[in-house]
């Protein structure tokens, strides 16, 4: 209550500024995001065209004054290198493959869960939704860490299966692509469920009743009515899982093995181990191009009512 008079005094002061005040208000977030979000991408693009060097910072400038003329040396060498070295192409393909498979698994688990929540009694919906979101609030790093204990050779799953007698030798699960799928699905499942729920909860049950009245079986109704109507939710959920999964670093670093090749890890190693900033920059630029279509799909799905994140 005490802050209100102070707030109004500041308010009155700003109010006298009129049009200038309006411009100032627009400028605060715009300038911040220009300087700390948009322009940094241009800097990455610029450095991706420069040459690595042993210097501080470790790259050569792409612009210089030669005999009084302003010249720009664009070096496409980094991009050529990405194409020539099979490691990078394999890492991009590997990321897309792992992200796509995880997205499909997340959809197969998330859709029934979202449907169940949307069809449960209104007073229970919020509680169930809360239970979906709650893990998202606890540390992501520690949740991935928990899976090490589950999946490793003498971990919880192997101990359980061996005690019951289903297997005699521990299964190798940690440091495989399987562990990465589990990690990605586990981490991003809430992102799949929320937009699907937002979509399914709006579904008018009259359509389902009409379909049943006309003699369709529940399975037929699901595939011809429910599924098509929830398409924007499906696309939004899938993209919210797929996009971050492509660039994922922590999950493959902790759960993946030596053959797990993901582009986020490659970028990390180029930057931190090889200290090759220009190559790391070109890896980032190419990753952005890979993600352009999924990002546009997501925008489309959200604009057509796929629910907010």
């Amino acid at each position, binding site marked *: 209550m005490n802050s209100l008079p102070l707030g109004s005094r500041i308010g009155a002061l700003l109010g006298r500024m009129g049009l200038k005040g309006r411009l100032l*208000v627009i400028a605060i977030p715009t300038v911040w995001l220009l300087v700390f979000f948009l322009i940094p991408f241009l800097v990455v693009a610029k450095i991706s065209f420069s040459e690595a060097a042993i210097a501080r910072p470790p790259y050569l400038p792409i612009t210089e004054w030669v005999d009084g003329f302003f010249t720009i040396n664009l070096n496409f060498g980094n991009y050529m290198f990405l194409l020539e070295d099979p490691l990078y192409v394999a890492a991009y393909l590997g990321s897309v493959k792992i992200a796509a498979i995880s997205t499909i698994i997340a959809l197969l688990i*998330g859709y*029934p869960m979202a449907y169940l929540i949307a069809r449960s009694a209104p007073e229970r919906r919020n509680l169930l939704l809360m239970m979906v979101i709650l*893990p998202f609030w606890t540390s992501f790093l520690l949740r991935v860490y928990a899976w090490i204990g*589950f999946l490793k050779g003498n971990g*919880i799953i192997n*101990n359980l299966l061996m005690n019951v007698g289903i297997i005699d030798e521990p299964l190798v699960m940690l440091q495989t692509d399987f562990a990465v799928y589990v990690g990605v699905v586990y981490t991003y499942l809430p992102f799949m469920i929320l937009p699907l729920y937002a979509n399914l909860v709006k579904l008018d049950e009259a359509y389902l009743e009409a379909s049943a009245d006309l003699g369709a079986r*529940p399975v037929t109704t699901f595939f011809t009515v429910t599924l098509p109507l929830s398409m924007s939710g499906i696309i939004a959920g899938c993209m919210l899982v797929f*996009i971050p999964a492509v660039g994922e670093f922590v999950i493959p670093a902790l759960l993946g093995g030596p053959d797990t090749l993901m582009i986020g890890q490659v970028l990390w190693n180029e930057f931190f181990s090889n200290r090759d900033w220009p190559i790391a920059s070109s890896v980032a630029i190419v990753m952005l191009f890979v993600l352009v279509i999924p990002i546009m799909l997501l925008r489309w799905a959200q604009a057509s009512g796929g629910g907010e994140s």
Partner: protein
Amino acid sequence: MKRKSRFLMIVGILGFVFLYAPILSLVIFSFNESRLVTVWGGFSTKWYGELFRDPQILDAAWVSLRIALASATLSVVIGTVASFVLIRFRRFRSKTLLSMMITAPLVMPEVIIGLSLLLMFVAMENVIGWPGGRGLLTIIIAHSTFGAAYSAVIIQSRLVDMDLSIEEAALDLGARPVRVFFDVTLPVIAPALMSGWLLAFTLSLDDLVVASFVSGPGASTLPMVIFSKVRLGVSPDVNALATIIIGLVSLGIIVAALQINRSKRMSRR
């Protein structure tokens, strides 16, 4: 029909088990006597003692806490101003640009955000001599940027839902727009500001990738220390730390939920 709903129930229950079993195992094995994290060796709280005697962890926790407090607050300020401008102002020239920039960090891979901000800081330092080295300040700026994006989502949806007639009434009674904002709009959207702040706070406490890029020597955040420990394998003191974090987060969420419930009941009255 019955069969289908039974199928749904089973998937639902398995889904929630999948979501909660790993978290539960972290908590249970934090009280394990044995160093082998997944083999039960009797009840013990010794890992908690070990945790509180580890100066590296304590320092990192203090660093992370300061960063999270500062960046959550900045996030909400930027997020609120951006949301207000986008929802309430009539068209202005940079509106599409701003709306694109405030949502884009949500879908940008962390490695790209981290790399681009680091390169920006280095470039700025070469040109204008600021921010002069990397550490707390650069991490706070980085976290505020994506924190603003997340809190703006929450605040925007609240602003859209808000009854415009209250603001109009204040304007009709002669209050200036800015005064209306501070005296009417802000109190009404306060719960959204709180949720936005909490979200930005936990995202900041949790971030490993962006902080690793923009951090400098001497500024190790808690996730950075945990990551280097965990890379060497499981260790029970990390379980103890996880349990403390899970406890605090659950407490925070319960308090926030009760608060929101109460204010909802108040506004209904």
